[in-house]
């Protein structure tokens, strides 16, 4: 039988591996010879866009990543921040877009499984999952199938492992018809003195494989995630991995048990590019070499080649480097949990990755170039042209206020997501203080009186119209959502979903969004501690809206101070915080009421106001002044008020007057605040010179605007709840 390495490396073979001729020449230079087939495979995954960030690295370096709260910034499995008392929050968001489009259930499920492993690899127990999802038009032929499958997959994995899914977001837009986005975020809690890192040190230390057996699933998944789709993409189904949440639950518990000892030197999840990427990263970060004997790798299929074992993306596997001699105690733990445990190699001082299989050396490569040697591209980027200001003449035929508001409440963006989130276990672990449906989710740090506030945000239509302002707005909205609960925003993770970076206008969107995100992160002291880039989100040459999803995490020091985003009783005084100019460009009103898709400038983001207003809201909550707080975003003030009414079926009478821009404009840095009458004076005093004005009072069962517009809260509720079930029933 001929060996796979006997395959001749032709131009066609190189192209199949997604390497350009120039990149292949660089591989040959690093190797000092022509790579064999296995080595080519390893280089191709390590240098894929997904693993090497070769188009994005230059720009990622410009993001703010520091702060006194940051324990670990980007570059590890997940970011780590200090949340006081020796506790740390560990979190990251990651995309699973391409697999989820091909096989929605398994694609989404393994996305959730993968991000949880990134978090518990670092010594944290996952305490909350969120997901940011984007689908095509609601009436597109594939949308319902994809949506049902993705939701079921997220629930199927998270519910089984027993980590609550506490929030997220869903948007619909035609640009996602052929390329949905599935971004999964996980937040975990660890002790600051028990954080585990990937770096492997100590020549002779054993390299240990634990978890599930290796199969042929997911081979070249990372390469697939680095290419555009076409009509034949569904033929790529075999490259989608299959998830087993039960095994992950066992792996989580076994890892936690072993981590309680001091046996582990380094640990790394086998995610994208599987055994290859985990071993390269561990050895490279530790500045050592690594020798792997593939005969020792637990396999679930027979006759697997070394190439397949190295590139498999089978799920629920971890690679660890243990202190020499500690293997027996580790093996006892893993076998008690019914998991595979195998010593498959050791660390060397060679600076090389050497792989043997069936008595032969099948790969021998320098580690440095594999890990960091991928070319860094400064791709041509064309700034997005400045969009014109909103054309006010479009409002000439605008419908009346009640029609507009009732339409928006039953629109794809505003409609209640209950159909989705009731399929997720949002309460397991007994620490969910505020689950889906609020501005930010609130999850108690187990056994303490403090809570984490978590939110995912981005408004892709803003990013498309003006990437810089859109990038800022995504960060600012996460900041606002966290402030609205009373928590202090601490840090963010991001998941940057864009089209083909080889097109200058797409690269221009990327560069613009990152510029805005960076500016906002610096101004709001909200650094980026982890993240992921997903490019080539295109099908047949049509790109998605630029979608840099932000996952924000904040800390509420005293959980009993938290407020919700619903009116809680009658006779509350309703205040509007923030300046309203009536920006309708790129608003939901423009898209869904005017049914207009011209590109107009989105609302500008004033970061100083964001910081000042956010700080004010937090202070007001800390002083116990507020009964409810809600950030104003999609649909503007009118939608925010309606949302606050429907929670507890409490009406409101709004006494100020305004035009369409006032009610539906999406000006930033604004909140609706509700306060009992006896605290109103204190709130006004605290506001000092901030733009804070009383706009109404809670009362009755109707939402009234002046004396002319009256809508029953029950009707708003029914419209808001009805849209999603009707869509899914078809």
């Amino acid at each position: 039988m001929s060996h796979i390495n006997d395959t001749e490396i032709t131009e066609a073979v190189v192209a199949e591996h997604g390497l350009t001729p120039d990149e292949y020449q660089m591989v040959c230079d690093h190797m000092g010879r022509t790579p064999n087939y296995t080595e080519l495979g390893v280089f191709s995954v390590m240098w894929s866009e997904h693993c090497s960030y070769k188009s994005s690295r230059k720009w990622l370096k410009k993001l703010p990543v520091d702060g006194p709260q940051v324990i670990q910034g980007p570059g590890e499995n997940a970011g780590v921040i200090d949340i006081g008392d020796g506790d740390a929050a560990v979190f990251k968001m990651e995309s699973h877009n391409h697999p989820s489009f091909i096989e929605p259930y398994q694609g989404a499920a393994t996305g959730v499984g993968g991000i949880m492993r990134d978090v518990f690899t670092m010594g944290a127990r996952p305490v909350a999952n969120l997901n940011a999802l984007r689908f095509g038009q609601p009436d597109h032929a594939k949308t319902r199938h994809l949506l049902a499958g993705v939701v079921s997959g997220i629930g199927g994995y998270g519910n089984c492992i027993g980590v609550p899914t506490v929030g997220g977001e869903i948007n619909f837009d035609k640009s996602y018809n052929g390329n949905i986005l599935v971004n999964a975020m996980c937040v975990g809690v660890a002790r600051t003195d028990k954080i585990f890192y990937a770096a492997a040190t100590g020549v002779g230390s054993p390299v240990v494989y634990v978890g599930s057996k290796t199969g042929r699933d997911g081979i070249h998944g990372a390469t697939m995630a680095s290419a555009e789709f076409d009509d034949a993409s569904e033929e790529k189904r075999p490259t989608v991995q299959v998830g087993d949440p039960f095994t992950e639950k066992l792996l989580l518990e076994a890892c936690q048990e072993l981590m309680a000892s001091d046996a582990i030197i380094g640990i790394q999840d086998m995610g994208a590019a599987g055994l290859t990427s985990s071993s390269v990263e561990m050895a490279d970060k530790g500045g050592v070499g690594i020798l792997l004997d593939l005969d020792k790798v637990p396999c679930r299929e027979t006759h697997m080649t070394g190439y397949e074992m190295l590139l498999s993306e089978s799920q629920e596997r971890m690679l660890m480097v243990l202190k020499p001699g500690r293997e027996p105690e580790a093996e006892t733990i893993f076998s008690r949990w019914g998991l595979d445990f195998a010593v498959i190699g050791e660390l060397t001082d060679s600076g090389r990755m050497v792989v043997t299989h069936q008595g032969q050396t099948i790969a021998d490569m320098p580690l440095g170039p594999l890990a960091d040697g991928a070319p860094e591209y400064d791709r041509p980027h064309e700034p997005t042209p400045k969009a014109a200001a909103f054309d006010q003449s479009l409002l000439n035929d605008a419908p009346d206020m009640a029609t507009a508001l009732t339409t928006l409440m039953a629109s794809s963006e505003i409609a209640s997501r209950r159909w989705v989130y009731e399929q997720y276990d949002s309460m397991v672990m007994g620490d969910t203080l505020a689950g889906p449906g609020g501005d930010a989710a609130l999850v108690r740090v187990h056994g303490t009186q403090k809570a984490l506030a978590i939110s995912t945000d981005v408004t892709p239509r803003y990013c498309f119209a003006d990437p810089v302002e859109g990038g800022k707005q995504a960060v600012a909205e996460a900041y606002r959502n966290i402030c609205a609960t009373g928590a202090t925003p601490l840090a963010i993770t991001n998941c940057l979903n864009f089209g083909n970076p080889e097109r200058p206008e797409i690269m221009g969107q990327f560069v613009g969004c990152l510029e805005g995100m960076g500016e906002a992160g610096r101004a709001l002291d909200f650094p980026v501690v982890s993240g992921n880039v997903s490019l080539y989100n295109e099908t047949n040459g049509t790109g998605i809206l630029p979608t840099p999803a932000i996952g924000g995490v904040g800390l509420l020091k005293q959980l009993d101070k938290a407020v919700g985003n619903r009116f809680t009783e009658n006779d509350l005084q309703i205040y509007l915080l923030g300046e309203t100019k009536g920006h309708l460009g790129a608003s939901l009103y423009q898209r869904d009421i005017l049914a207009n898709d011209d590109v107009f400038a989105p609302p500008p983001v004033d970061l100083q106001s964001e910081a000042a207003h956010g700080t004010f809201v937090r202070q007001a909550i800390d002083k116990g002044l507020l009964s409810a707080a809600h950030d104003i975003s999609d649909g503007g003030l009118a939608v925010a008020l309606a949302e606050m009414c429907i929670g507890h079926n409490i009406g409101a009478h709004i006494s100020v007057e305004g035009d369409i821009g006032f009610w539906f404009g999406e000006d930033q840095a604004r909140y609706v605040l509700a306060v009992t009458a006896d605290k109103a004076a204190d709130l006004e005093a605290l506001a000092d010179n901030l733009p804070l004005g009383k706009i109404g009072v809670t009362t009755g069962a109707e939402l009234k605007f002046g004396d002319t517009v009256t809508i029953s809260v029950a009707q708003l509720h029914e419209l808001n709840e009805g849209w999603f079930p009707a869509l899914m029933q078809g």
Partner: protein
Amino acid sequence: MQASVIVFPGSNCDRDVAVCIEAAMGKAPLMAWHGDSELPKSDLIVLPGGFSYGDYLRCGSMAANSPIMREVVAQAKKGAAVLGICNGFQVLTECGLLPGVLMQNKGLNFVCRNTRLTVTNNKTAFTAQYEAGEEITVPVAHNEGNYFADDDTLKRLQDEDCIAFTYADGDNPNGACLDIAGICDPSGRIVGMMPHPERRAETALGGEDGKRMFSGIVEALS
């Protein structure tokens, strides 16, 4: 008193229920491993929610055949109080301590939300602190909670006052026969229920309606 929580591989509400038992009893329960063939004599045994053995076979059926369950059944027959919550309820029906079966939800989807329950029987070992007919709010989170039994069994459950909880009018989340949310054996010492009282046992989590299950059994056994 001695309380034990059985931990199967895939159990995921074991810690949550242990927190509630400790709050009620002032002492942490014993966490008993599925593979053990001995269980210290226990006054209270709790089978927690989760996905035992992944529930890759019929829910609860693998767990019902685990070594520890022989002990659980033996102690139940000698008078220990047993509470099965969600997956634990499924295990109790699979091992024969309670009749019937939990089928897939009528809506075919997992459902996690608060439900309004009626305390149909407040004479069980766990429900004495509720008023008869009291309406309480307790969340469910399951894919297979659709209680089913043949007509004779359902009649017997009614005649022997073995229906512990029903979903209140219009709030049946899964299509269960007779709106059954929880049942007990004729002695009232063995209770199985789909809703999760441990998730509603403190005001920070939205309410305390579930707390009296735990304070009630501790009071009954002390």
